[in-house]
């Protein structure tokens, strides 16, 4: 009963935190998409970089999020910048990897035909490669979003705001109801984001 009481009595601050949470994730994803797709495209042209870049992204994923926040804290300071930077780093792998795989997976004949007809490389990238790889890239973005919605909760620890605040306050006050509010909201957010992106993805796959 007290869980619902909590939700009803604090709905305003829940909404605010949720909005903060969404904002952090959205900013991080936007930057990560630009960075990740860019990197992914780049390594299809400079193949020798593909290995190292993907390896780097992989290594980033293995760093525990709490440690990552600690590592970036001296660089970006307390607050939401460090949080966003962390989320960007974690989003890179799925986006870079899927961009790379999506472009590499295009039937070579399609690219050959485009080249043979005298399309410029930039046009091939814009009109052929990216549109064809887009469903795969979008799947990568989806993976990233679902993942960092969860990680963003931890970023509250270094003052980035968001729904993690409830969780950490709950833990420090030994108030499990508060932890539950935070956790449930984060889960709901992740599920909603996943559903939304799935629909967008479905539309592009036709």
């Amino acid at each position: 009963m007290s869980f619902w009481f909590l939700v009803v009595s604090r709905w305003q601050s829940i909404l605010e935190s949720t909005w903060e949470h969404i904002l952090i994730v959205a900013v991080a994803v936007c930057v990560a998409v630009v960075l990740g797709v860019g990197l992914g495209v780049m390594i299809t042209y400079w193949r020798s970089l593909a290995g190292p870049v993907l390896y780097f992204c992989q290594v980033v994923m293995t760093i525990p999020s709490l440690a990552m926040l600690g590592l970036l804290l001296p660089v970006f300071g307390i607050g939401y910048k460090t949080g966003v930077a962390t989320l960007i780093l974690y989003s890179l792998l799925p986006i870079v990897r899927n961009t790379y795989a999506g472009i590499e997976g295009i039937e070579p004949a399609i690219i050959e035909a485009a080249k043979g007809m005298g399309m410029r490389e930039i046009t091939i990238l814009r009109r052929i490669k990216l549109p064809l790889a887009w469903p795969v890239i979008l799947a990568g973005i989806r993976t990233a979003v679902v993942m960092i919605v969860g990680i963003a909760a931890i970023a509250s620890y270094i003052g980035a705001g968001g729904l993690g605040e409830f969780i950490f306050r709950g833990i420090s006050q030994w108030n499990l109801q508060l932890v539950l509010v935070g956790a449930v909201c984060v889960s709901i957010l992740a599920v909603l984001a996943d559903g939304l992106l799935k629909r967008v993805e479905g539309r592009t796959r036709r």
Partner: protein
Amino acid sequence: MIKLEGVTKIFPRQKVPAVKNLSMEVAEGEICVLVGPSGCGKTTTMKMINRLIEPTEGKIYVNGRDVAEVDPIKLRQNIGYVIQEIGLFPHMTIAENIATVPREKGWPEDKIQERVDVLLELVGLDPEVYRNRKPADLSGGQRQRVGVARALAADPPILLMDEPFGAVDPITRAHLQNEFLSLQKKMKKTIMFVTHDIDEAIKMGDKIAVMRAGELVQYDTPDRILSAPADDFVVALVGHNRALKRLNLVKAGDVARKDVPVAKGTCSLEEAKKLLQADNLPVIVIVDGLNRPRGVAYKEELLRRNGQAHLQEIMTPLESVADEDATLYDALSTMLNYGERYVVVMNHNKEFQGIITFGYLLELMKENGS
């Protein structure tokens, strides 16, 4: 139109050249077929013409200009390109696919749309039906047609075709080949055509360039390749049934006997007998008012019958027919398929063009003798 001078290509980290000191010339308006086993350098040779591959040595001229000095983008936009896998862009509609090069060249939108419709008509696809479809909705044969239409979009004087009809079943392939040949009759493009199939080479080529291990073995007309192969390699390539293959070089419409009697269905048997007696034909062709063959009456049947009957009463529906563009090979195979000694040749309007009988075919081949 296309001229290669001492062209050699050695790929990085390979000792043996893929193409070795190749010199040849393709005249304007001709189809030159590069043929040979896989790995003989035919595709490499073709790709050097539009600079998808740069030659290690030698010069290539297109329209008298050294391609090495032309911007590859400009060069390629003026050379149609069709590959076996077609490479249609799956996310674009058929119209967008065809519009690729005109769009790159910056044509105005209304001119592009007009051109797309013309091309779809040209390759036998109804623009209303196919314009807005996606490649995935088309059959293999239809996709090949779109591939050809796309290559022709900006009306390039030169076409490069790498096994363009390779990915379809034999029936569709024969169909596409015939259609393309009749198109070419009107277009008069200069075409470099790559295939590993000697039969296709014989059918499509004005000239055939036989290649082996990067070298040109023989460059000649199909007839000469068949009747005077340069060496054992060419003999092996064209196969032991050379004589049969030469049938591919003759169009049924060109040799069909046109001076034969035809009759209307209402013609009396007596009259038909008279018509037939003059000629040593196994059948008399029955045509309708528009000179379109409806059926045949067999000579034996006709001679057996007496009385006042009309020809249409002993008419057998037409089965053994060939298009005027069909080759004698096709005609012979139609005859054999239906177990007949004749094949009726019709033009595109389904009008009577002539008849080819088995005996006549033998005579023809004797005349052409090897």
